[in-house]
């Protein structure tokens, strides 16, 4: 894509999300979401393949449906409560609370509306997939964080639990890396939304750490354009350091102590237990082990075993790496080694 066009489209995506995040009037929020969705469609179809067009179509259909549902909820709310601010939604209004949750979880890709996430992430390139799974989550989550007091917590907890289950089980049969990261996103969204009605700053914490880890994973996968587990197993030949970083990042994504990925799980379990949701906390924690299993499979094929392959390129050190790695080193350190700094995150409010 030509650079001016890319700049305009990226700016529009940025503007859309920013508009959603800073407004308190429902109409502007909706407009921001629409701007965001419409401008990401050209990014999705950047490489002109039928698979990308299919992915873009699926993305457009689900997001447009979600936006329509959101518009319906907004107008209904305005009709019944007479005002358009986000903070005064009446939680007793059944239709509003239900359809609001449905619309926003459809935007985020949570169960039972998660079916588009693996397909769309698979159909686009690695960096676009990263944009999809990181930047696109910001706008809906900011809406949910603004109105968290009026969300029906039972429905949201149910959706979160189902998302963690589906994210864990769905990823078990995958070898395509983009689909694995998509299912991981579904599971992490589940964790984030489980704690929203109790303590939204923990949602922010989980979101931050999840964003860092996903950006790292996509960047490292992009270094050698690995899209399947099989190609990933050749990574030890090209760059052994990256195999070690993939090991650490995947273990952190799976939530193993003493890495930073453990921190959101720990504080979410603590907050859920404080609110007497002990069974939910235990079930979610155990379901996260399913996620860990397919990360372990990836780790096995990259770092802990050596795939037999001849080293054809003996002069590879002469070629400069062409792929940009945005802040890879600081992000890796931030997302794996900062568990001792956990009291700092209490400033997130």
């Amino acid at each position, binding site marked *: 894509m030509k650079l001016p066009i890319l700049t305009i489209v990226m700016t529009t995506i940025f503007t859309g999300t920013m508009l959603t995040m800073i407004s308190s009037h429902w109409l502007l929020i909706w407009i921001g979401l629409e701007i965001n969705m419409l401008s990401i469609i050209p990014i999705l179809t950047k490489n002109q393949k039928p698979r990308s067009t299919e992915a873009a179509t699926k993305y457009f259909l689900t997001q447009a449906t979600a936006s329509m549902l959101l518009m319906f909820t907004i107008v209904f709310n305005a009709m019944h409560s007479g005002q358009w601010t986000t903070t005064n939604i009446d939680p007793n209004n059944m239709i509003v609370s239900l359809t609001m949750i449905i619309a926003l979880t459809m935007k985020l890709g949570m169960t039972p509306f998660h079916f588009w996430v693996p397909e769309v992430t698979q159909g686009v390139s690695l960096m676009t997939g990263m944009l999809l799974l990181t930047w696109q989550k910001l706008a809906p989550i900011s809406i949910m964080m603004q109105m968290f007091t009026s969300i029906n917590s039972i429905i949201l907890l149910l959706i979160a639990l189902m998302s963690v289950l589906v994210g864990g089980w769905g990823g078990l049969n995958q070898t395509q890396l983009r689909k694995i990261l998509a299912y991981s996103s579904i599971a992490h969204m589940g964790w984030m939304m489980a704690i929203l009605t109790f303590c939204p700053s923990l949602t922010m914490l989980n979101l931050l750490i999840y964003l860092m880890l996903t950006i790292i994973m996509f960047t490292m996968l992009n270094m050698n354009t690995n899209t399947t587990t099989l190609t990933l197993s050749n990574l030890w030949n090209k760059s052994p350091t990256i195999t070690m970083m993939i090991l650490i990042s995947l273990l952190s994504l799976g939530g193993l102590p003493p890495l930073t990925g453990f921190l959101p799980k*720990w504080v979410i379990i603590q907050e859920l237990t404080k609110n007497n949701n002990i069974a939910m906390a*235990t079930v979610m924690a155990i379901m996260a082990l399913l996620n860990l299993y397919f990360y372990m499979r990836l780790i096995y094929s990259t770092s802990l075993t050596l795939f037999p392959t001849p080293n054809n390129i003996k002069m590879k050190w002469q070629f400069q790496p062409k792929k940009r790695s945005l802040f890879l080193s600081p992000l890796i350190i931030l997302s794996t080694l900062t568990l001792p700094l956990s009291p700092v995150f209490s400033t997130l409010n």
Partner: protein
Amino acid sequence: MLKIIIPTIMLFPVIWYSNSTLIWINMTSYSLMINLMTLPLLNQAGNNSNNFSLTFFSDSLSSPLLMLTVWLLPLMIMASQHHLMKESLTRKKLYLSMLISLQMFLIMTFSATELILFYILFEATLIPTLIIITRWGNQTERLNAGLYFLFYTLIGSLPLLVALIYVQISLGSLNYLVMNIWFQDMSSSWSSNLLWLACIMAFMVKMPLYGLHLWLPKAHVEAPIAGSMVLAAVLLKLGGYGMLRLTIILNPTTKIMAYPFIMLCLWGMIMTSSICLRQTDLKSLIAYSSVSHMALVIVAILMQTPWSFMGATALMIAHGLTSSMLFCLANSNYERIHSRTMLLARGLQAFLPLMATWWLLASLTNLALPPFINLIGELFVIMASFSWSNVTITMTGLNMLITALYSLYMLTMTQRGKFTYHIHNIKPSYTRENTLMSMHMLPLIMLTLNPKIIMGLTY
């Protein structure tokens, strides 16, 4: 405590800046010096603890285990020298870094005050062990072994996390020193039974309990020698240590809930000992023997009498040294004939008489010969279980018999009898190997003279 932890962390730069001639010397000598620094910790007041800070403390239970951990690091390094010979320097450094990080986590685990810190480090020990087993093991089964090891432990310990957080919220603090004063009796409801289960299962999987022991033969057999040593000697004891720490808040539910576990342990002791009699794989025999000894420890901890706690602690230390020594001996066999099958190398006494002495001593301590501390541990546990219920003497007595049987079976199979024809060109014992065995044996013998330092909390 920082005077032990910081030097251990600083072993990382020592490794990465050493060149290939100095790396083994540096590592072994510095870790032996860290040993020396840990020795004063053994000077413990009987019923009190040395509180170094709000985060670290050491009392008569944790200091022998800490001593065992730091004692084991130079031994692991000495044992790994042979199989790492052919690897590149970076790979050697990575392996040693894994050992050092494991050591660091273990030291902090045994001295943590806050139970959540204990939990985080308990889980943290999984990662280096997993990497050591899966990356440097020798057979294809190591992949399965790593997965079993990781997931068995994690499934047990996630409910522990939830239980610890619940206890923190309901009791107010999870600092062990505070918990000793603030503990209350648990109510006798179904939910407190579940809480008891959640607290205990993590350690049961780690010990391991008989029904959940499937990961242990896999992990011990597939791990390289340092991995086997640290698994058998220290990581299993983490389970016992955790249970001993948590018993204070789990009263009086333990009296009701402990029955199925005690029965599983008593039965499992006999089962795993009997399986040892039919093993062909030497490392697998030692692994099952570990399960059997640890079952005694579980019985002791669940019975909660002063004598049983003394026996449990003594047995943990004794078993750590003995099991580690047996794995080193099995490894010396493996390095010569590249097979773990016992049948393939028989009659070694004719070729390696000094090694046969170490085999004899190790087998004798394994079968709990007086006056070694193994006997003290087992005797105290058996006496305590006899006083708890007279019937248990049948099982524990039978177990002692079968333990003696398989230890002597292992000894006679590998050392005595006619040698096999193909082992006439095995290399004689290295000084390194003899040093390794003597460094295992000397603490065992010396502790016989003063066992009160390993008797633990209730001496």
